[in-house]
């Protein structure tokens, strides 16, 4: 039997059989399924596998090369960490959905053609929405519904685009494309939805923070990075991505500063980090693509770590609103410690993963003379430290003491966080080992004295700005609120428009009914006038009536007869 089947099947099948086990057997499966999948991925030889014919096209369900491999590895590491993080939970629905979700994301990454990509693309949408609904609240249900509609639409765009593309190209292979035909533009938008491009982004901030403490960790890993992978595969070097990425890297950080729900703050910084990757893909040089991929890899781990720490807070305290929290370092010192490691990594402190990954993109931007983009990214780097690096740990674990005294996070959560934290530091300390995984050969040295010094200056002065604004009282306080984003357009504006339209339609319908009714009664009245007991046609005996009609008929016959001669 050949082992060259998609690794995705192991996870999806594992996820589907998980509910049939219980107790410690299920817990064992939780750990072993990702491990088996990882081993399978390691022994999968590079090249195209699992080819089959479908309506005249050749599909290849497994394409193993360096780009797909690195995404596969990090997705599996994340799935493994998720399994440990969810160890304490008895909610098999979430555990099962996480495996199916991770499996379908991996399936999509290894897809060699657009049809296979589409199938796994939709499967990620369906399996991930279960994680949102698993919160089992009305808000989560509605938010999940909006999320599902957006993602199914993205899949539909991908399918329609693929059909157009295959007609014009005669091939369905998922490879580098250029934005000069309608089919490709549709595919580009589909990828854009998944990667949370500006104005297509709101599902991310709407749905992720509504999920459970376990669900959000899994959600933060797969969908968006699948979008990034797809862009790297299909649209490397597409110049418009540089502009899109720069906007993505900046605008969410303004929202992050004023957002109260700390997990939502993390989704804004997630969006901002995706911006860096999109810029890297847009630049398209080997260094830039390496940077985007390295950043995606590092990002998955430190973002998981940050979401895990906030998940632990949610699990123990029951809220992650900045306005309610504070002083938790006293009750949850280890969680606070791991959160700070995640924060240092996302902020790209030297010796942490963000530093060695983000530098590649920044340098690539300068090598291609994108000075303005570089300045924007530098601002975004300072901003991400400001809101994710400082704000998250500060408001959750320090700031004023909220009086919450709870237990430290469960052991399994701490273990998952410690592994993620170790990898974050490991990548930061041994960049050359990490660079070996990247798609192209790397000759880049992140630890030069000027680079380390400049980065430390940037970060320390961003921290000083935060401290200065805090002490002078300029910093906006955490308030219970919602901030309108582009979702306002469909949640309020379009909704009201639809309701108004509906109202008009109903009014028109009522008027039409009224008129018809009036007409009908008018007709009835007319008939009644002539046929009522005293009416013209009811006054005589039926025989007399009949004579009248016969006379009329003969008269008309006569007229027609004469007309015949007249013509």
């Amino acid at each position, binding site marked *: 039997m050949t082992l060259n089947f998609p690794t995705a099947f192991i996870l999806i099948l594992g996820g589907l059989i998980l509910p049939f086990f219980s107790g410690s057997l299920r817990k064992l499966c939780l750990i072993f399924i990702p491990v088996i999948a990882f081993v399978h991925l390691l022994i999968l030889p590079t090249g195209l596998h699992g080819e089959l014919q479908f309506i005249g096209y050749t599909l290849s369900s497994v394409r193993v090369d360096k780009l797909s491999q690195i995404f596969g590895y990090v997705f599996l590491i994340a799935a493994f960490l998720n399994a440990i993080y969810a160890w304490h939970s008895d909610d098999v629905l979430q555990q099962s959905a996480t495996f199916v979700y991770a499996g379908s994301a991996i399936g999509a990454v290894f897809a060699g053609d657009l049809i296979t990509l589409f199938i796994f693309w939709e499967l990620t949408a369906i399996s991930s929405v279960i994680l949102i609904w698993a919160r089992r609240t009305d808000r989560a249900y509605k938010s999940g519904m909006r999320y599902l509609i957006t993602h199914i639409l993205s899949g539909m765009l991908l399918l329609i685009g693929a059909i157009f593309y295959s007609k014009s190209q005669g091939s369905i292979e998922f490879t580098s494309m250029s934005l000069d035909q309608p089919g490709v533009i549709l595919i580009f938008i589909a990828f854009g939805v998944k990667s949370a491009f500006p104005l297509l982004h709101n599902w991310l901030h709407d749905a992720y923070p509504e999920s459970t403490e376990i669900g959000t960790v899994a959600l933060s890993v797969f969908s968006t990075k699948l979008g990034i992978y797809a862009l790297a595969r299909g649209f490397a070097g597409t110049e418009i991505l540089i502009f899109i990425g720069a906007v993505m890297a900046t605008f969410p950080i303004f929202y992050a500063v*004023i957002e109260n729900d700390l997990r939502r703050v993390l989704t804004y910084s997630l969006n901002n980090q995706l911006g860096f990757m999109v810029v890297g893909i847009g630049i398209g040089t080997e260094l830039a693509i390496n940077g985007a991929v390295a950043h995606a890899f590092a990002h998955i781990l430190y973002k998981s770590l940050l979401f895990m720490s906030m998940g632990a807070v949610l699990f123990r305290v029951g809220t992650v609103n900045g306005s309610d929290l504070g002083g938790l*370092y006293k009750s949850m010192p280890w969680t606070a410690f791991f959160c700070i490691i995640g924060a240092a990594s996302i902020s790209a402190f030297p010796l942490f993963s963000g530093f060695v990954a983000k530098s590649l993109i920044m340098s690539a931007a300068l090598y291609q003379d994108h000075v303005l983009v570089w300045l924007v990214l530098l601002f975004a780097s300072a901003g991400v430290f400001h809101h994710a690096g400082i704000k998250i740990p500060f408001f959750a674990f320090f700031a004023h003491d909220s009086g919450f005294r709870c237990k430290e996070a469960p052991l399994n959560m701490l273990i998952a966080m410690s592994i993620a934290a170790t990898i974050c530091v490991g990548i930061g300390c041994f960049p050359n080992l990490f660079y070996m995984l990247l798609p192209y050969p790397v000759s880049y040295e992140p630890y030069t004295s000027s680079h380390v010094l400049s980065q430390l200056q940037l970060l*320390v*002065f961003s921290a000083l700005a935060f401290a200065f*604004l805090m002490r002078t009282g300029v*910093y906006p306080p955490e308030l219970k609120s*919602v901030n309108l984003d582009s979702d306002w357009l469909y949640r309020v504006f379009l909704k009201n428009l639809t309701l108004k339209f509906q109202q008009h339609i109903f009014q028109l319908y009522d008027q039409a009914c009224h008129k018809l009714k009036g007409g009908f009664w008018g007709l009835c009245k007319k008939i009644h006038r002539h046929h009522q007991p005293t009416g013209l046609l009811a006054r005589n005996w039926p025989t007399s009536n009949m004579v009248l009609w016969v006379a009329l008929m003969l008269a008309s016959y006569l007229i027609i007869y004469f007309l015949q001669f007249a013509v």
Partner: protein
Amino acid sequence: MLERIKGILIMIKKKYWLDKKENITKIYIGLWTLGILLILGDFVIHRHEDYKTAEMFGFYGAYGFVGCVILVLVAKVLRKIVMRNEDYYDT
């Protein structure tokens, strides 16, 4: 709720190092000292930059500080425009 009251009681009883205001000030001053030392580092290490303007003395410190202040000030204006009640979408 009971847990929280208990917590507040413990809080009054047990004082941590960070609970004292003067210690916070110490950290604040320490951070400024660190910042100034790092800027002075420009005299020791000549930073080689691909973007020449960035070689200017104190470029990154100024960029980080001013950038973040602008970020917060703009965010405050943004808040005036986009902030709504918590149950805005539910009503």
